[in-house]
């Protein structure tokens, strides 16, 4: 099913025309209304006249999270506060949160994007959505909420946490679609198993998982444990929240709503655009936003874009799974390590639970990685040798994938903290 076929399946030439017209208008708009951008453009000697279409986009300056923090809280807003009807903020795990303001039109646009997502997942007005993303400043809860209501679904605004109640209502209200972080989905799967309620008493059929990077292996794990289809939803509060991108039934990449958010991939070091299909950092330019439009916002997410038409008929560009974040990448003894690589190894070994905790430390001037993993209950043995063999198996797999030694520690079941929001899987003590 497709929510907005005329846009989602528009030929790429037509889409490019729309993007070009909107970009030109947007650049004039921010030049007039956002002193920050006027100054930035003046500094590099360009005026709105230099931007005639998307082919000129690389002339525009980049925007970073630091710019948002420097202009905290509302310095990047292009409208007076009287027109801002909603304020959200990023989770703000490192320092001040980044703040975003929405006008009434921005909220409508965001809702449209989510309606496209949910429709692509096969949901409609017969579905019951359980929104287990956090409500509040975090965009996940309310974003998904408005989108689900817009397609006519019945919405249970659960927010995150209180897992027993989540399961009870999921069961009693006949929830068909669960929205939460992928790590919370695994937590819920375990809790359902513990509850003793048989799976056939639940009506759950699909899950909408986002807000943290996850791997294909983790998708498989969730799909098997919860017996549902698990869809990726992509977004970031700076751009609008969840719904910037979504998967279709073919699960072959995340379609981006590029009629509203113009995506580019640049080399994170040289900042030069890369060829289609090449990996790099994802950058977005708002094409339609009123409240706080951003030019060339660097997401730090590393991925690649593919422009071929999808089997589902959508022409919207498809994004690869997020490989990691340029700022999450760990450099261990000069080697680049992404937490997603470790996750892939763990999920590839059936003997281990998908939860892990990686601690990086510097001991005697050498970087050390310690990985805590839980063995699945059925694989615990009463023989030390068998347990040591398990440990050796994962250690050597990690060694061959990462090219680095990792000190693996087998830990007791459920001793690694389960997360109801974004999972914290890496502790880098070197930065302290």
């Amino acid at each position, binding site marked *: 099913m497709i929510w907005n076929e005329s846009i989602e399946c528009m030929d790429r030439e037509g889409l490019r025309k729309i993007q070009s017209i909107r970009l030109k208008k947007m650049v004039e708009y921010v030049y007039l209304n956002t002193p920050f951008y006027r100054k930035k453009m003046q500094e590099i000697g360009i005026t709105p006249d230099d931007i005639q279409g998307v082919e000129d986009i690389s002339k525009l300056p980049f925007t970073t999270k630091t710019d948002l923090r420097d202009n905290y809280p509302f310095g990047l807003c292009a409208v007076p506060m009287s027109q801002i009807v909603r304020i959200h903020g990023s989770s703000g795990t490192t320092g001040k949160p980044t703040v975003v303001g929405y006008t009434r039109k921005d909220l409508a646009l965001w809702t449209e994007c989510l309606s496209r997502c949910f429709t692509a997942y096969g949901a409609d007005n017969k579905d019951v959505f359980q929104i287990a993303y956090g409500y509040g400043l975090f965009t996940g809860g309310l974003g998904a909420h408005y989108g689900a209501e817009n397609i006519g679904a019945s919405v249970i605004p659960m927010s995150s946490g209180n897992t027993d109640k989540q399961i009870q209502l999921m069961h009693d209200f006949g929830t068909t679609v669960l929205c939460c972080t992928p790590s919370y989905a695994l937590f819920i799967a375990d809790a359902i198993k513990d509850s003793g309620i048989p799976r056939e008493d639940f009506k759950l059929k699909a899950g909408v998982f986002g807000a943290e990077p996850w791997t294909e292996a983790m998708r498989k794990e969730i799909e098997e444990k919860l017996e549902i289809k698990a869809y990726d939803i992509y977004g970031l509060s700076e751009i609008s929240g969840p719904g910037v991108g979504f998967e279709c039934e073919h699960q072959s990449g995340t379609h981006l709503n590029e009629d509203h958010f113009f995506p580019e991939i640049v080399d994170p070091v040289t900042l030069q655009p890369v060829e289609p299909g090449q990996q790099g950092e994802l950058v977005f330019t708002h094409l339609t936003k009123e409240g706080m439009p951003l030019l060339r916002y660097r997401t730090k997410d590393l991925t690649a874009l593919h422009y071929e038409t999808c089997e589902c008929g959508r022409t919207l560009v498809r994004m690869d799974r997020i490989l990691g974040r340029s700022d999450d990448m760990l450099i261990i003894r000069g080697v680049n390590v992404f937490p997603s690589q470790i996750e892939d190894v763990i999920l590839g070994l059936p003997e281990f639970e998908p939860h892990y905790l990686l601690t990086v430390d510097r001991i005697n001037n050498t970087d050390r990685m310690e990985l805590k993993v839980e*063995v699945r209950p059925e694989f615990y043995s*009463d023989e030390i040798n068998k347990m040591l063999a398990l*440990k050796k198996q994962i250690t050597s797999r990690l060694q061959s994938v990462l090219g680095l030694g990792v000190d693996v*520690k087998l*830990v*007791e079941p459920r*001793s690694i903290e389960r997360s109801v929001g974004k999972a914290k899987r890496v502790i880098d003590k070197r930065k302290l």
Partner: protein
Amino acid sequence: MVAKQLSIFLENKFGRLTEVTEVLAREGINLSALCIAENADFGILRGIVSDPDKAYKVLKENHFAVNITDVVGINCPNVPGALAKVLNYLSEAGVFIEYMYSFANNDSANVIIRPSNMETCIKVLTDKKVDLLAASDLYRL
């Protein structure tokens, strides 16, 4: 003759062993024998308890990694050479011992064995008239 032994995986973490014993105590389960095999990262507690099925259930509920393993308990005289004689029967029959633990009490000694092949082990020991402990006796030692 075949007894159920609990095996519990424990991280080398302060107080963890205390927690196991407290969980068992709360449920009125008595430990009649135990040993710990350890290495740098973790230990495996093996124990014989008064009610293995109940112990297994409560430890699972408390999220311990617990397994039940079949072991055999024998009673032999507490004199030099008695154990050697029993072990000799087993090695001659090609039964390998994964692990064992024992304790002596006055004139006799109790030995708990985890053999590689339970069936052959029982047969050999029965044929040689070794004093095998009934599971129910073992739980009540």
